[in-house]
């Protein structure tokens, strides 16, 4: 009576016994990352809006915009953007089965991200020396919160990249699970794009 296909009982592939072909054609994990990144847009949107509201509220003390070092931040922004390139090269290498090159590019991506984080640490400490600390005024609180959250995201990305690197050294990252690299890459590129927004809106557009 019931029209049922002979799928289900027999439709398990090793490792993913509970799922079948995704209806969208995008794997569960990749779709989940896209959905998560959609949520992240609102998170950074909230922090960026907060900074824009507060950027001129100095409470009589130094504003973050007065101590920006645009050339320095430009260089570290360039470093971060280049890491997107190495990320793509890493994915490409893993995709064609060149594990050695994949490891090199993964490490390079993590290193470039690390340089960016180092630059941010330097920038924060020099700002504090120049009198703009987390609690100085609403503008500084908003600045450190926004860039700090971005820095946390980059750091988390570095942890993921290094985990991939270790997995690759142990031989657990091969062509078959190249999609994991792609998904970490989605996150990494997203964090880079957010920085393009932050750099443009926070650093380059002068306060009125």
């Amino acid at each position, binding site marked *: *009576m*019931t*029209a*049922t*296909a*002979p*799928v*289900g*009982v*027999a*439709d*398990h592939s*090793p*490792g*993913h*016994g*509970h*799922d*079948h072909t*995704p*209806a*969208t054609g*995008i794997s*569960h994990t990749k*779709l*989940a990352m896209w*959905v*998560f990144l*959609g*949520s*992240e*847009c*609102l*998170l950074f*949107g*909230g*922090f960026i809006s*907060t900074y824009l*509201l*507060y950027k001129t*509220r*100095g*409470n009589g003390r130094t504003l973050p915009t007065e101590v920006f070092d645009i050339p320095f931040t430009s260089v570290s922004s360039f470093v971060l953007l280049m890491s997107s390139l190495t990320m793509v090269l890493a994915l490409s290498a893993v995709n064609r089965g060149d594990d050695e090159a994949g490891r090199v590019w993964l490490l390079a991506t993590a290193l470039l991200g690390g340089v960016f984080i180092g630059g941010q640490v330097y920038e924060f400490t020099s700002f504090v020396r120049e009198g703009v600390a*987390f*609690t*100085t*005024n*609403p503008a*500084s*609180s*908003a600045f450190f*919160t926004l860039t700090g*959250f971005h820095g946390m995201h980059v750091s988390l990305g570095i942890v993921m990249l290094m*985990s991939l690197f270790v997995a690759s050294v142990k031989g657990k990252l091969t062509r078959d699970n190249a999609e994991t690299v792609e998904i970490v890459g989605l996150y990494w590129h997203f964090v880079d794009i957010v920085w393009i927004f932050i750099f443009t809106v926070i650093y380059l557009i002068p306060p009125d």
Partner: protein
Amino acid sequence: MTVTEDTPLALESGDLPRYADRPLGVLTRPQGGNGWRDWVSTVDHKRIGIMYGAAAMFFFLVGGVEALLIRWQLAVPDGSVLGASVYNQLYTMHGVTMVFLFIMPLAAAFSNYFIPLQIGARDVAFPRLNALSFWVWLGGALFLNSAWLVGGGGADCGWFCYAPNSGLTFSPSPGVDFYTIGLLILGVASLVSSINLIVTCLNMRAPGMTLMRMPVLTWMLLITQFLLLFALPVITVALFLLMFDRLFGAQFFDPGAGADPLLWQHLFWIFGHPEVYIIILPSFGVISEVIPTFSRKPIFGYEFMIFSGVAIGFMGWGVWAHHMFVSGIGPISVAVFSLSTMFIAVPTGVKILNWLATMWGGKLRFTVAMKFAVATVAMFTIGGLSGVTHSVAPADTQQTDTYYVVAHFHYVIFGGGVIGLFAGLYFWWPKVWGYMLDEKLGNWNFWLMLIGFNLTFGPMHVLGLQGMSRRIDTYAAGYGFEFWNMVASVGSLLIAASVLFFMINVWRSKRTAADRPPPGPDPWDARGLEWSIPSPTPVHNFDEVPVVRGRDEWWHRKYGTTDDGRVVMVATAEEAAQTGDAVGVHLPSPSFWPLAVAVGLPLIGYGLIFNLWLCVIGALITVVSIYSWAFEPVDDPDADHGHDSGAGDDHEDGHEVVGLGGAAGAGAGAQQP
């Protein structure tokens, strides 16, 4: 969870417990059964749904007791039951508990249990993440309420927690810190859950289950998940700012330092208004399943139902500032938000019309579930209409911060949300537990709740228009407030009695279940795929993944149309239903790591408030657990992969194999006596 073929429910004498030879001891993956290990390590969407539901009902009682204390205090003028400070904490924690710890998790229970069943899936897309959502949620809920014990009292800033009242100046005790960190933890749970369920809905539909064939409940829950996905990060921002202000001396909400307290209001309500729809849409979905079933008609205007839900989801983002008409946002903003608020009544009105049109000319059966559903439509309409009066900004200015607002949102949230979810409880109870709830006790439950609800919140319209303020712990005699306050307090006792009847009903129905005939797969002659499988649901859900040929697939397997257009039954539910005795269905392995990850988060929270060293411990637990999780194979290597039935495989230790029908039933239904 899964009953393995080589694991009898009772160990034969002489058998060692299967954990004995495992190096991880208690953290070894259990392979089936019904002990506490199996529940805390379960990744079964049905068990997770049940745990969400049970925990939500517990917090319903907690929030209910808080509400009763409020009504006790307000029953007579110059009430002296509670002091002002305790009163502030009680109404805050009542709101927070009912919204975040009762309605949302009860809706999560329905999402977890029924989305996979309605789309013909065996589980959600990420079973372990699903378990993580529940445990993180539970940790956050306990953390939030632990403020009563270790935080010197609950938060006292209202559930909306407006700045600068939430700052250290006006709220120096750590109650508000428990609020910020508690809600952040709950947010993690909801975010993970929303991603999981969105992927499940989009990716795991059975063959033929196109989006426009999905049941309305699944659709409304999907829209709810999208609202959660985009609303949660906004309140996350707000909560972080407030937490930084209070714990680390940031300057986000201190007007003295030039900060703008309205920033909090905007961020909170950009989250808070979609939150209203997060609360109401699951209930809309539930009654959209109940009403067609008991009207013996398909839902009227399915496409309109779906698209008005989607429209509500979109427009819900453009109305937040109607919570802020008196905050001085300027005439243009007021006019814009006033208009958008009036417009959002349109898709909601469409839904109400469609429910009525579904019932029109139908063969109505007023079961308890149907009564709750119809009451939902009526009560929500009242709440919706008083909502439209709020959209008129001049009227709203008069009503702001009065009991009129309290009346309005209780009609929407309790009358629309909670009563609708009760319809769902009565409707799906036999599917989950394998026995029906008693209709007679259910009627007591229903009528007491409906009458008590209207007695409690109806008079608040009058009190509000008379000028009685919200959030004030007492009122003086002689303003004409006495009578209606007493009525409201009596009404609240009736609501409490109705909840008592619900609990008695559960207890009695369960105890007498064995004396009554089992409900069978489809006791209501219903329409969705969840009724095509035995009650209670087998562990593996579907013996064979169904192929869907249209909307209301299950109905069309039971009924056909003759040449002259008459509807005739072509198969009984028992004939058409699956038997639940499939063997060899492979299910995801249970895991302890979701629970372990979740344990770390409240520790980090306590650490932020009391001692940063606790943060280190919490973070260590979380990080180690995340890595252990990542390196734990999704499928237990000790458990061989599932195999086809009757293929003559030898069953080694730990096979994730569903045994015979009886054993499968025992696996899912072992909660029964």
